[in-house]
Structure formats: C-alpha cells, structure tokens
C-alpha cells in the first residue's frame, strides 16, 4: 500500500471525523493507502510540518495557507470538504452589544497563530482599528485555548467555533439567551476553513497525484459516512483520541455541527468561495494578510479525477 501522512490542524476531534472514519471504515485501505494521521496542537503549524517533509498532505484554513504561499511555501488546495465557516464571535448580551459597531471600545479575545486573519479583515471592513480601546478601536487579546476569558469577563467577546467553544460556554451553565453571536458567514467575511493542501511541486509527480486522487476520494467517502452516521462517527473519533480526555456528548454534538459545515460540498473547491476568501483577505486594512492576488493556489486536478 502507498503511505500517506496527514497532518491535522488541531487535536483529535469530530472536526476531523471524515478522515478518522475513512481510516476506521477501511476506505483508505480500499484505495490501497496506508494513512497515518498526525493530530495537531498549539504550536504545530501544519504548513511548517509539510514544508519540513513531516507530512504529505495537511488540513489547513485557507487564510493561513495563502499567507504561507506568500511567504514562499507553495501550498495548493486540492479539495475543500468544508463549505461554510464555523467561526464566530460570542459576546455577553448584558454588555449591551447588539450589532457589530457596538464592538467598538470593547475587549475582544481572538485566536492568533494564523487564525486571526478573518477577524482582522472583518474589523477593517468595519473601519475599526485593533490597536486598543478608542472611539473607533477595540482592545484585542490573544485568547488561549479555552473560553475562560469570557466566563470570567476578562473579555466582552471571544472567538468561538460553532462546533466547539460555543458549546463549552453553554456547558459552563450559560444559557444561549445570555449570549449574542456574530457568525463570520453572516457578516460577509467568511473565509474557507478546513481544506486539503499539498505542496505544488509534488503535484507534478503522477504517482503522487494518483495517491492524492485516491486519498481525496476515500476521505470524501469518509465525510459522507460521517454525515450519515454522526453518532457512530463521533465514537470513532473518540476511539482515536489518545488523550482520553474528550467526552462523548461533546463529540456527538460537535459532529452534528460539523455536518452543517460540510453540507453542500462534494469535496471540490468552489472557485466563487475562493474568490470571496481572497478578496476578504486582500482588504485586510493597513496590514493585509496577503498583498497580491495569489496564483495557482488551488486546483481541480485532483478533485476532478477523484470525484467524477
């Protein structure tokens, strides 16, 4: 079998259910692939791992991938299982925040490590500076990995994913009525999230191309399966979690939310989504994420063969 190493963006969780299902259900094996899944974590930059040859293929968000491309690492999107963005800003209602312009003069928690780009674009589209509290500014905190800043009111709003952190806030006993959320999708600044990326130079190699075709085909099969059997998929993820710290309820719920994000994608990148992402990123205010229109950052070369 051909060996493939997959680097995930984050720790083992239902966000990556499709790949674990494909592995567990033998879809990779059917395609004669021997896949190793490397979970991510804080401090793991999938882009760096793939550059260092630690993985053949990686799951990454498009803003980070495009930024890496501009830094001279030619990543190419070969498939895009996630159609919509799950990122949002979650705020306390009792702070009086009702619409985006109310964010002015507040303290906001944001994820960095390459995940800050959509937020920055959004703020610049609103004309809000991120250099500290001011009439047209916000105080930005680099949020850690948990939702404590919101619960302890060190921040008025924090970044959450529809499928993960939001539910942790709810699990902490907060009722949804106490919160107000702004989905990036609704604000028109959605950027593409989990996509499958490889190094451009590898694509020229027909053998590698063939491997990727089979990989994408099996992975999408896994995603289909996961959408149809969310609870079983969550259990598969749980079985693969080596930390033993994940909980069943949380993963089942996460799987449910993830299914909403994958819905509408057959795995092939929709060029319109790509264009929207690029224009959002290019409008990044004074310090845009990417300074020029990228070229060759995606291809249908693989998905066309895999999905038809």
């Amino acid at each position, binding site marked *: 079998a051909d060996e493939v190493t997959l680097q995930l963006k984050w720790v083992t969780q239902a966000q990556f259910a499709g790949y674990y299902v494909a592995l567990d259900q033998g879809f990779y094996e059917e395609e004669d692939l021997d896949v190793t899944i490397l979970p991510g974590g804080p401090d793991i930059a999938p882009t760096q791992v793939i550059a260092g040859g630690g993985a053949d293929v990686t799951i990454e968000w498009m803003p980070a991938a495009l930024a890496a491309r501009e*830094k001279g690492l030619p990543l190419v999107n070969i498939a895009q299982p996630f159609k919509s963005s799950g990122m949002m800003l979650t705020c306390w209602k009792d702070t009086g925040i009702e619409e985006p312009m109310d964010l002015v003069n507040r303290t906001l928690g944001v994820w*960095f*490590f390459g995940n800050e780009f959509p937020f920055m674009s959004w703020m610049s589209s609103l004309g809000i500076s991120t250099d500290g509290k001011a009439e047209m500014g916000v105080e930005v905190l680099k949020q850690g990995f948990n939702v404590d800043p919101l619960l302890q009111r060190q921040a008025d709003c924090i970044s959450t994913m529809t499928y993960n952190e939001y539910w942790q806030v709810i699990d902490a006993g907060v009722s949804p009525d106490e919160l107000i959320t702004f989905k990036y999708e609704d604000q028109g600044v959605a950027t593409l999230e989990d996509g499958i990326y490889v190094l451009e130079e590898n694509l020229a190699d027909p053998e590698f191309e063939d491997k990727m075709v089979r990989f994408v085909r099996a992975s999408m099969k896994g995603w289909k399966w996961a959408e149809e059997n969310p609870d079983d998929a969550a259990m598969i993820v749980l079985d693969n979690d080596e930390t033993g710290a994940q909980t069943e309820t949380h993963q089942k719920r996460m799987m449910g939310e993830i299914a909403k994000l994958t819905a509408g994608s057959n795995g092939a990148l929709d060029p319109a989504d790509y264009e929207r992402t690029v224009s959002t990123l290019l409008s990044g205010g004074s310090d845009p994420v990417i300074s020029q229109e990228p070229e060759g950052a995606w291809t249908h070369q693989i998905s066309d063969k895999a999905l038809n």
Partner: protein
Amino acid sequence: MTLLIFSVVIWCAVWAMNRQIANSPDRDDRAARIFVPVVLGGATLFLWEGLVTGLGVSPVILPAPSDIAATFAASTAILWEDFVQTVLKGALTGYVIGCTAAFVIAVLIDRSSFLTRGLLPIGNFVAALPIVGIAPILVSWFGFDWQSKAAVVVVMVFFPMLVNTVQGLRETDAMQRDLMRTYAAGYLQTLVKLRLPAAMPFVFNGLKIASTLALIGAIVAEYFGSPTRGMGFRISTGVGSLSIDLVWAEIAVAAIVGTLLYGGVSWIEKVVTFWHPSQRR
C-alpha cells in the same frame, strides 16, 4: 556549496585559533575570555549560514542568520515593544518580586528549623511543576496583561532562590558561629555580620539560576493568553504565520537579554563575593 565548504573551513580555523589562545599565557585576560566565545559564536553563525544555503534548507524551517539579521534590523520597533512588554514589565517585575520574597522568607523561616525542614522538600516538588501547567491557571487568575506573566515568573524563581538562600544561611562553619557566641552577639548582629555575608555566594547562585528562568517563564506564559504584543506572543503567532525569521529575531533578543542579565548578576556577584575562593585566581 562553496559557501558551505568555506564556512566549515572557517569554523575549523577559528577553533584552531581558540586553541592557541586558550593555551597561551594571556588566556586569563578579560579580552581573551570574551573574544574566544564571541568568535566561536560568529564562526558558528557563519557555519549555519553555509549549511542553510548550501543544503537549500527552506527559510520557513530554518532561516539563515543573514535573513534573521535583516528582519531584526527591519523590525526594531516591534522588537522594542515586545521587549518592554515581556522583559521590563513581565520578567523583571516577577524576578524582583520573586527573588525578594524568597530572600525575605528564607531569612524568616531560617529561624525555625522545623519550618525549613518542612518547606524545603515541598519546595523541590513545586520547582518540578511544569510551567505549562501553571501558566494557564495564573493567566486565568491574573488576567492577560503582564501581571499574570510576572506571577508565573514569581512562581518559577521563588523556590530556587529560597532553597539557595536557606542553604547559604546555614553555610557558616561552626567556628565562625562560636566566635559570635563568645561575643554574646544577638540574632540580628549574627545575621548581618556573619550569616548574610557567608550566604552571598549561594544567594547569587540562586539569582543566576532565576535570571535564566525569568525570561523563559514570561515568554511561555504569553502562550496561554496575552495582549497583542510581547515576545511570547510574537513567537507563538510567528510560527503560525510562518514568520520564522521574526521568531528567530525574538529568540535572539531573548538570548541577548538573558545573557546580559546573567552577566550583570555575575558581575555584581564578583564585586560582592570577591572574597570567596571561587572568585580568586
């Protein structure tokens, strides 16, 4: 490739020269003691340059020193802002508070052998607590700004300093103490005239260990939440956005600051404990 070979040759030449200096009669000169490691460092940087360019290592994995230097020069404003946030506010505050508190408490508990015997073993446990576990807790207690970073530094430096000071205070030999007894010197007199001076070599040992820990503590704590400035912030986000050259520039700042801090403490140590055999030649 030629650069690689050239840098290897240079490195070997520098090593040979250092050998010469080290075996020459001037080897204990202040100048020689600084020159030798500095040229070796320079040669090593050059070797690094040669390896990276010669072997074509991608700059997103390991940038060449020349790239790092260029970034360093181009980002002095950012580096300065981060230095103020992490070093001046976080690390130094924590260092001063932690070391002072440890010193004072060491002097206080030293009067009770019960407390010392009870506290020291526990101190060793606490010293083995990983900062990566303590940092998120302290960030959630003390907020995102430098206060939580200082708190992490306090926790990190407290016990090494405490243990060293307590040990130092016991370092007087029996005869030196007996002498004070024959004078019927009081506790305070014995402390000021005998035990504190005798403890100084140990106190400085603690201060030196703490000086390397302080910076690391402040940087690591920023991984668990920070304002949008600081060396730890820049390093952690820099890796994510593949600005590895900026990451290395920050590492260089950390190394320089750490070395200066360590060197400063060593220099004060030399002045204060001039009498100790280890300071004489």
